[in-house]
């Protein structure tokens, strides 16, 4: 259709425009480097996630005893104390969510590169889940900050953040950037290209504003 759409304010402009004339955002029909950026952030995030689990997250000193706990050890310890709910929150936020995020982003990126058996609509829902939930992994870093700010009783008990907290925060930030660089419109392009039922499955995927309908 020779149009390019603004992802911020939804205005359509003639093909070739570089700046939206309503809101001033930068326009691109498709972010051609999208997948490259996704994979780049994805790998950096994954690399940071490894030391985040190996190094101690929190150092606890009580009456001369020093104990270092990694993320998983911390959660296990909580469960031993009977706080299953909190242990579950920690495990979900710092293990389940990051791991499933890595997997979902990889599935989405692969789905754009090749044919995907998952429907585009389902993949968009996955994308929105990942985009929304990614920030919540940061909770573990905040908990460490609160604990080590509060528990400062020289000899009696004190807590200090461990090296893992930095790597963990970096990993969360990098996966958030990875999810943000994924252009969700690419999901629909790959759908159109091999979906023969679609009435307008035509043309080059990179310039694909083919349909018009009123809501």
């Amino acid at each position: 259709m020779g149009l390019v759409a603004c992802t911020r304010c939804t205005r359509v402009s003639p093909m070739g425009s570089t700046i939206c004339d309503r809101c001033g955002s930068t326009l691109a029909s498709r972010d051609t480097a999208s997948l490259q950026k996704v994979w780049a952030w994805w790998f950096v995030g994954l690399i940071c996630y490894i030391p985040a689990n190996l190094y101690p997250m929190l150092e606890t000193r009580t009456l001369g005893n020093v104990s270092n706990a990694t993320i998983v050890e911390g959660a296990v310890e909580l469960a031993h104390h009977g706080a299953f709910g909190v242990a579950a929150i920690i495990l979900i936020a710092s293990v389940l969510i990051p791991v499933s995020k890595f997997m979902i982003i990889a599935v989405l990126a692969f789905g754009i590169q090749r044919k995907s058996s998952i429907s585009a609509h389902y993949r968009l829902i996955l994308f929105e889940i990942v985009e929304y939930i990614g920030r919540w992994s940061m909770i573990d870093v905040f908990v460490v900050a609160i604990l080590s700010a509060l528990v400062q009783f020289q000899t009696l008990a004190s807590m200090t953040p461990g090296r893992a907290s930095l790597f963990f925060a970096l990993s969360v930030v990098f996966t958030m950037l990875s999810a943000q660089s994924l252009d969700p419109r690419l999901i629909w392009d790959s759908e159109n290209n091999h979906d023969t039922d679609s009435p307008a499955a035509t043309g080059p995927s990179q310039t694909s504003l083919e349909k018009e309908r009123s809501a």
Partner: protein
Amino acid sequence: MACPKCDFVYSVPEVTSNERAYCHRCHTVLIAPRRKAGKQIIALAASVLILIAGATVYPFLSISVGGQTHSASILETAFAFSGALTALAVAVLMFIVIIPAVRLVLLIYVLLPVIRDLALARYAKPAFRMAEALTPWAMAEIFALGCAVALVKLADLADVAFGWRPGCSPPWSFWWFSPKV
């Protein structure tokens, strides 16, 4: 207009106050007007700003063990990361105080002229774009849940008490569709 998620093109429909327009292909909400949304956002933004200021400076949690009491403000919480982890202190401060506050200030700056039917503020467009771009990086509500987790973690170690509560920002995104430029 085109759906920002799947690029399906529509001619802009008339949508009244209690209706919503969805993209029929990917079900993204496209238009959802609300009456008086602007005023509500400004009122909430102003009060949350005051709460953030209060929560940042005053101690918001205190703990006592064996007669010793220790309390921490949000500022001190962020600076619990020191030495090699100082970068993290700055990041935490950005996530829970500075970015949420900047977003609210930007929103007020953009919306105040809008609800008064005046001309748009001079930098309204870039300001609103920036406010939207900052949304995922404002993590005040995550910090609030973090407080709860930390409390439970400490509960068997010591007595913990709330001081000034952190200003927790409501999920703004719900109101965001209406005041589109």
